[in-house]
């Protein structure tokens, strides 16, 4: 399953026209302890670069953007009880939401793992 990255530190795992979205290890490390995550509701329509979720640490709140256009099929309910999943396993169990893609062509503009790693090094 290919994984893509945005410059806004979101990752997206794609399987045909369904995908899982989360934030990267770099991002969770910058944020510090995550205390709360607001995931989008099932059925929400999201746009590439538009607000999809909110992640809160003790003294900061960050918007998480949708990497591509689509519709949310599921928010990660586990994060309500245990937001630390985002710190401990950001690229696995700490996923934020699943979605269907309405425009798979948008994936072409995203980075692969090597490109994202290089991008982060430049920051």
């Amino acid at each position: 399953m290919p994984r893509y990255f945005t410059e806004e530190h979101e990752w997206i795992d794609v399987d045909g026209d369904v995908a899982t979205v989360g934030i990267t290890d770099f991002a969770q490390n910058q944020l510090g302890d995550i205390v709360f995550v607001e995931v989008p509701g099932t059925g929400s329509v999201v746009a590439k670069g538009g607000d999809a979720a909110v992640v809160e640490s003790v003294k900061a709140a960050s918007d998480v953007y949708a990497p591509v256009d689509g519709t949310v099929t599921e928010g990660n309910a586990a994060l309500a009880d245990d937001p630390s999943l985002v710190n401990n396993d950001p690229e696995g169990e700490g996923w934020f939401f699943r979605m269907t893609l309405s425009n798979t062509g948008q994936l072409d503009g995203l980075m692969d793992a090597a490109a994202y790693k290089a991008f982060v090094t430049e920051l």
Partner: protein
Amino acid sequence: MSGLNPTGWRPEMAANDGSTPPMTSTGNRALMLEEALIFEIGTAETCGVDIAPAPTINSRLANLERRTAIGLPGLSEPETVRHYTRLSRQNYAIDLGLFPLGSCTMKHNPRLNEKVARMAGFADVHPLSPQETVQGALAVIDQLAHWLVTLTGMHSVAMSPKAGAHGELCGVLCIKAALEARGEDRRVMLVPESAHGTNPATAAFAGFSVEDIPATPAGRVDVAALKARLGPDVAGVMITNPNTCGLFEPDLREISDAVHAAGGYVYCDGANFNAIVGRVRPGDLGVDAMHINLHKTFSTPHGGGGPGSGPVVLSAALAPFAPLPFVTRTDIGGFKLVEEENVGDEHPSSFGRMTAFHGQMGMFTRALSYIMSHGADGLRQVAEDAVLNANYVLRSLTGVLDAPFAASGPCMHEALFSDDGFPDGFSTLDVAKGLIDEGFHPMTVYFPLVVHGAMLVEPTETESKAALDQFIAALASVARRAKRGDPALKTAPHFAPRARLDETLAARKPVLTWKEAPLPQAAE
């Protein structure tokens, strides 16, 4: 994602190295006394007030008597006095020592203010008393209003806002009302990146979209960028002067002229008025509205977080829209309130009412007492000594802490430092916690956002040179420890009533009221 942790603050709960002295049986350490919650020591039956028995009557409570237990503990008077006295001793306060919080103006709270505010003719008067029975109270409001308008060189003042942020809202709503009266729908408010969080929050509440104005390397508003952005969609700009980096905005008059020419208004956040009171009038700089924090510049007590008071001085352009109620003079030399019933005659463009009753009368008496005590000459001296003290702190720490704007000239009433030069793993947070052990409340940290690891120090004018010297020595000591990577700083404070507290746990598993169940375990 947006703004990944703009301040860089991280919770740090390094495990204690176990070198604390042995505990006593009580957990007390001489005069440092632990105190339980009232729910743990009080009972539902204990009462510290003697109340006469109620006469027997036929109840008129519509069969809605409260029959279930409420859960409110009571204590006798001796237990109550002891409980709150013990709690008070766990607080730092201005009365104890220098309180260097930038933009908070933690100056001495004169006790004359407290005496005056408690006179029965002010403290024990109902706001809806017939107005002929409260002429002295109305006179106080009128006199304070006169001082505020004269000190700022503005046209009039709205006295009712209950705090600074409430005053910001008042000013922004006056702007919005003025635009509506002109038939214009301007949606954008320009706010510097360095602004206090209440500025964009207030603008957003009033329905504006907020756009950032960048700062120049010298720490001022980028005037060229601001002018380039002006247009028919810009309602105005929210400026702080002096700004949150402690610097005077020398181009404010030019900015105001440009904003006015483009049809907008200038809101000035007056939190830093202490730097210029009696020496500069915001009205001379083209400001249309400015809130004044009576609990900052004018010494009303902070009280552990409030109450505040935020009257808003207004230009002639915005004055017609000021909210109710306010005090005016009657034909026969008395005072009256303009409320809903006479607004149609007196003040038809008022945008409405911001609070029940008239405003923070208890703060008006205190502030007027302070103002009269200082007078025009004393207030000018306040600004001068405040600026002198801040510059003394700034220059005394040359070479000890990085001050990003120190090379470009003097600061105003507050000095800004950064964490530049700190080794990896050491942060502004560690300096703050180390300062606690030295016997000082930390300065403002991680604000403004435009400087990394910001430390903003505002000593105020009520600090003696000896107090400043002691503070400077303490801050220098802690800063040096941070720069050489002293590991003991990571677990500071060591001597405070509490060590670093787990804010992550508090946010992940909020416990906001007392429950009898045991506390959830900390993460990990």
